[in-house]
C-alpha cells in the first residue's frame, strides 16, 4: 500500500472556503382537511461544518441521510429552513436569486445521473457554453475557445461538441457534466454522487479525472457518495451523515482506521472487500433507517445501535472534538 501524501492534510489550514452553521432543511408534510403542515421531514437537521480551500470533504451516508439535500442547500438550490451558510466569508443564506448569480460562478455542482443532468435538447457545445452566456460577457469566439479548452481538459474530443448528450455513454456524459461545471473556473464544486451510476471501469476513469482537475484547477470538492470506498479514495476528510445529522467527521485516515461512532463502524464493516486479510468482522445492523419525518428522540442512531444505553434516548449527542480533528457525536465518548 503506497500512500502518497499528495497534500498535507489541512489540519492546520485555516483557509475556510465554506462554513455552515446549524443548517436545517425541513420539508413540510401537509395533511388534514385544510392541508395544513402537520409535520416535517427533517432532511438536514442542525448541521455545522467547514470546508477548507483545496481539500475534498467527503460526505457519506445511506439514502435518506440528507447528504444530497445538504449539498443542494449549500448551493442555495434549496432554501434553508434555518442556519447560516458562509461562502468565502460571505453570508449567502438569504440572498435572492439575483444576488446569488455572481456567486454561483464560484460554486458549481455535478449530479449523479448523467442521463438526467444534461438537457437532452442541447448540444454539448450549447451545454458547456451556457454558463458562459449566463455569467460572462465573453463574445462568441472567446466562448468557443473556452469550450474547446475545457473539453480538452475533461478528455472529450472537441469534434464531439456538436453532438447531443444521448450520443454519449454514461462516462462521457459525466465528463460533459464536469466540463459544464468547471467552465466558469469555480472554486468550489459539490459532487453529488458523480460516479454512482457508472460501471467500475468507467468510475475509475472519472475519479481519476476529477482528481487531476482538482490539482490542476485548485478546486475544493464537497464529494457526496454512499460508497465508502470511493469516498475514501478521493477525500481528505470524511463526514458521516445519519438521519440529517453528522455522526462523525474526521480526516480520512482517522475515520477509516479508527472509526469511533458505532454507525461508522457498522458501515465500514458492511463493505464487502476483495482483500481477505483486511476483512473486518461484520456488524450487521438490525432494522431499517427510521423515517426522517419522525426521527428517534435523543441520538437518531440509538434504535439500531448495538451499544445504545439509556442516555442515548434522552439526550441528543453533540459533535465532540476527539483530537486530531476528529469529531464524533456519540455518548460513548463523553
Amino acid at each position, binding site marked *: 500500500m503506497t500512500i502518497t501524501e499528495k497534500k498535507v492534510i489541512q489540519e492546520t489550514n485555516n483557509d475556510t472556503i465554506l462554513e455552515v452553521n446549524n443548517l436545517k432543511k425541513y420539508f413540510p408534510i401537509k*395533511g*388534514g*382537511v385544510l*392541508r395544513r403542515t402537520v409535520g416535517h421531514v427533517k432532511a438536514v437537521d442542525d448541521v455545522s461544518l467547514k470546508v477548507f480551500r483545496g481539500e475534498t470533504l467527503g460526505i457519506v451516508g445511506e439514502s435518506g441521510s440528507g447528504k444530497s439535500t445538504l449539498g443542494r442547500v449549500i448551493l442555495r438550490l434549496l432554501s434553508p429552513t434555518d442556519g447560516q451558510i458562509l461562502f468565502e466569508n460571505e453570508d449567502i443564506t438569504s440572498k435572492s436569486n439575483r444576488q446569488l448569480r455572481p456567486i454561483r460562478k464560484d460554486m458549481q455542482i455535478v449530479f449523479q445521473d448523467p442521463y438526467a443532468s444534461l438537457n437532452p435538447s442541447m448540444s454539448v457545445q450549447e451545454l458547456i457554453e451556457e454558463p458562459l452566456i449566463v455569467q460572462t460577457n465573453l463574445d462568441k469566439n472567446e466562448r468557443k475557445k473556452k469550450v474547446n479548452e475545457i473539453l480538452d481538459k475533461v478528455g472529450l474530443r472537441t469534434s464531439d461538441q456538436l453532438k447531443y448528450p444521448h450520443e454519449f455513454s454514461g462516462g462521457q456524459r459525466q465528463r460533459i457534466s464536469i466540463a459544464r461545471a468547471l467552465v466558469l473556473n469555480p472554486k468550489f464544486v459539490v459532487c453529488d454522487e458523480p460516479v454512482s451510476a457508472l460501471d467500475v471501469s468507467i468510475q475509475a476513469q472519472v475519479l481519476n479525472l476529477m482528481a487531476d482537475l482538482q490539482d490542476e484547477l485548485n478546486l475544493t470538492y464537497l464529494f457526496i457518495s454512499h460508497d465508502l470506498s470511493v469516498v475514501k479514495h478521493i477525500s481528505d476528510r470524511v463526514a458521516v451523515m445519519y438521519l440529517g445529522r453528522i455522526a462523525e467527521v474526521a480526516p480520512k485516515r482517522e475515520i477509516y482506521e479508527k472509526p469511533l461512532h458505532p454507525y461508522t463502524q457498522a458501515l465500514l464493516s458492511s463493505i464487502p472487500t476483495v482483500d481477505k486479510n483486511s476483512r473486518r468482522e461484520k456488524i450487521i445492523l438490525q432494522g431499517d433507517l427510521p423515517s426522517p419525518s419522525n426521527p428517534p428522540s435523543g441520538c437518531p442512531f440509538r434504535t439500531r445501535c448495538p451499544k445504545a444505553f439509556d442516555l442515548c434516548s434522552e439526550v441528543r449527542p453533540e459533535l465532540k472534538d476527539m483530537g486530531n480533528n476528529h469529531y464524533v457525536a456519540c455518548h460513548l465518548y463523553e
Partner: protein
Amino acid sequence: MYQYIFRRILVFIPMLFALTIIVFALLKAAPGDPYSKILDPDLDPSVLEEAREAKGYNDPIPVQYFRWLSMAAQGDFGESIRYVGRDVSELILSRLPNTLYLGVFSLFVTLIVAIPIGIYSARNPYSPLDYFATGFGFFGLAVPNFFFGLVAIYLFAIQLGWFPSQGYISVSNSGGFGGFLDRLHHLVLPGLTLGLASTASYMRYMRSEVLTVLGSDYIRTARAKGLTERTVLYKHTLRNALIPIITLFGFEFGAIVSGAVITEGVFTFPGIGMLLLESIGNRDYPVIMALTLMFGLFILVGNLIADILYSIVDPRIRYD
C-alpha cells in the same frame, strides 16, 4: 380517506357557487327570455310582459340571482317555464334515468369491447386483429358521432330492422326480464353511437397500458414464480393496466352528459342531454340552472370517484 373526501367536497361548494354565478350571468347576457320566443298574433304581448313581471324577470339581476340561490339552497329549483306546471326537479328526475341507462350501457359496451381487444392487441401486437382493432380505433375517433348515428339508424333500424330507431322503451314493456331486454334493445344503437369514440380511445389506452405493464419488472417476477401466462395476464397485468383506465372511467362519468346531447338528439332519446339543448333554446332558466348545477356536480363527483377508485385499485395511492 374520509378526510380527503370531505376536503374535496368542501372545495366543490365554492366551485359550484361560482359556477352558478357564471351561468346565471351568461344566461342573462344572452338575449331573449323564456317568453320572447312566443310569437302569437292572437296573444297580447302585454300578457307576456305581465308574465315576466310575475316571474320577476324585470327585477335587477342580482336580486333574481339571490332569489334563485335562496330557493335552490332549500332544494327548490322552481318550475320550468316551457314545461308549464312541471317542477324542475321532477322534470329532470324523469329524464335522468334514461340518460343514466344510456351512459351505463355505453360505458359497459365500451369496457367489454375495449378491454379484451386492447389486451389481445397488446399480447399479439401486429397481428391481423391488432391491425383491425387499431384501424377501428382510428376510425372511431375520426367519425363524427351524429353522422355515425344517422348511418346506424339507416342501416340497422330502417334497412335491416334489427333495432328500434327511436325512443327508449316499448309501450308493451311491462318490466321484468323481458322489459329489461326491451330496454337493452332500445339502447343498442344510441349506446354504440355514444360509446364509439370512447371505445376507440379505451382500446388504444388498454393496449398501450398492457404493453407497458407486460414490460415491467413485477411481471418478470410473476413469470419467474412459474405462474401460467393466464394468471400473469389476468391477475398481474390486468389489475395494473386497469388503473389508468379506471381513472378515465371516473372522468367519463361527467363527460357522458355532454356526449349525450348529440346522441340523444339523433335518436330522440328523451334524456337530460336533450332537455339541456331544448332548455337553452327556450331560455328555460330554472331548468338550465338546475341542469348546470347537476352537471357540475356530476363532473366533480366523477373526478372524486376517479380518485377514490384509483386509491382502491392502486394501494400505493393514499389520500389524507
